[in-house]
């Protein structure tokens, strides 16, 4: 897949890139765990020369001396990681409009990988509706930006 858009949950920050994506991997390091509130961070590399913000701009936090992490100031979605001087931006895969388009190639930062990570695909599965009677009855209104570019939002 060549070229794609993405953004945060509320739609306040949107981006687009052209051309092919670079290397994609899951990082288990404790910095990525904390930044994403998760067991790891799946990231894909895209050349900055082919990348642009199309709506809003991210907030930024310097998580270490040479690394900036971007997020939406209105909804918090972690959006990217970027090292000073790197010609690429590392996008959070979950923010892509089609995260399924990414081919993950490796795992990094495995010194902090939780012991049960590899077993998670075998956990008992439930669909959202089984888990959530409210959702099953269709009684809620999503306020998430759709997975495509929009002319106006909200």
């Amino acid at each position, binding site marked *: 897949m060549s070229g794609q858009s993405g953004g945060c*949950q*509320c739609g306040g920050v949107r981006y687009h890139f052209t051309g092919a994506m670079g290397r994609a991997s*899951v990082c288990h390091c*404790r*910095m990525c*765990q*904390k*930044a*994403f*509130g*998760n*067991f790891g*961070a*799946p990231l894909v590399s895209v050349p900055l020369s082919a990348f642009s913000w199309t709506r809003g701009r991210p*907030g930024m*936090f*310097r*998580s*270490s*001396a040479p690394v900036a*992490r*971007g997020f*939406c*100031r209105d*909804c*918090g*979605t*972690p959006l990217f990681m970027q090292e000073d001087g790197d010609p690429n931006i590392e996008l*959070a*895969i*979950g*923010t892509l409009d089609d*995260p399924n388009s990414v081919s*993950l*190639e*490796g*795992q*990094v*930062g495995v*010194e902090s*990988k*939780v*012991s049960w990570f*590899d*077993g998670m*695909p075998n*956990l*008992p*599965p*439930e*669909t*959202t509706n089984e*888990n959530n009677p*409210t959702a099953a009855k269709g009684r*809620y209104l*999503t*306020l*998430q*930006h759709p*997975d495509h570019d929009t002319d106006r939002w909200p």
Partner: protein
Amino acid sequence: MSGHIATGGCQCGAVRYRITGPLFDAHICHCRMCQKASGNMFAALVGLKKSDITWLHGEPAVFRSSSIVSRGFCGKCGTPLTFAYDHTVHMNVSIGSLDRPVDVQPEVQFGIEGRLPAFGTLHTLPGSRTEDDVPPGDMAKLRSLQHPGGE
């Protein structure tokens, strides 16, 4: 997983919390709402009573991702922190925001309709340590600005 005090917070340390009751229903959720909110393949969450959390420093900013749910995050660094339905006495914190995420092992996977096919094969991908991927001499430059955890 129950019977002890858990602490946690965001990456920059502007928001810190303490949980004094039991943690329960640890899970990952693959639904597209959780994917997008957390910029990830899934969210990792654990339940607690709303009355058992104390904000030690700062408080989360809140985004209402649907008409029935609030998601809390750090307004300074973005770390996803909480998930709560309006109508229950329970809430969730993100497991990765806990100071000791290794204490909280998920028991179930929700939102299976949104699970990415690649999730099932993640464990087969080759792995490397951080120091293996950083050029020699550069590790010292990676001075962390992350809150160290603990109160």
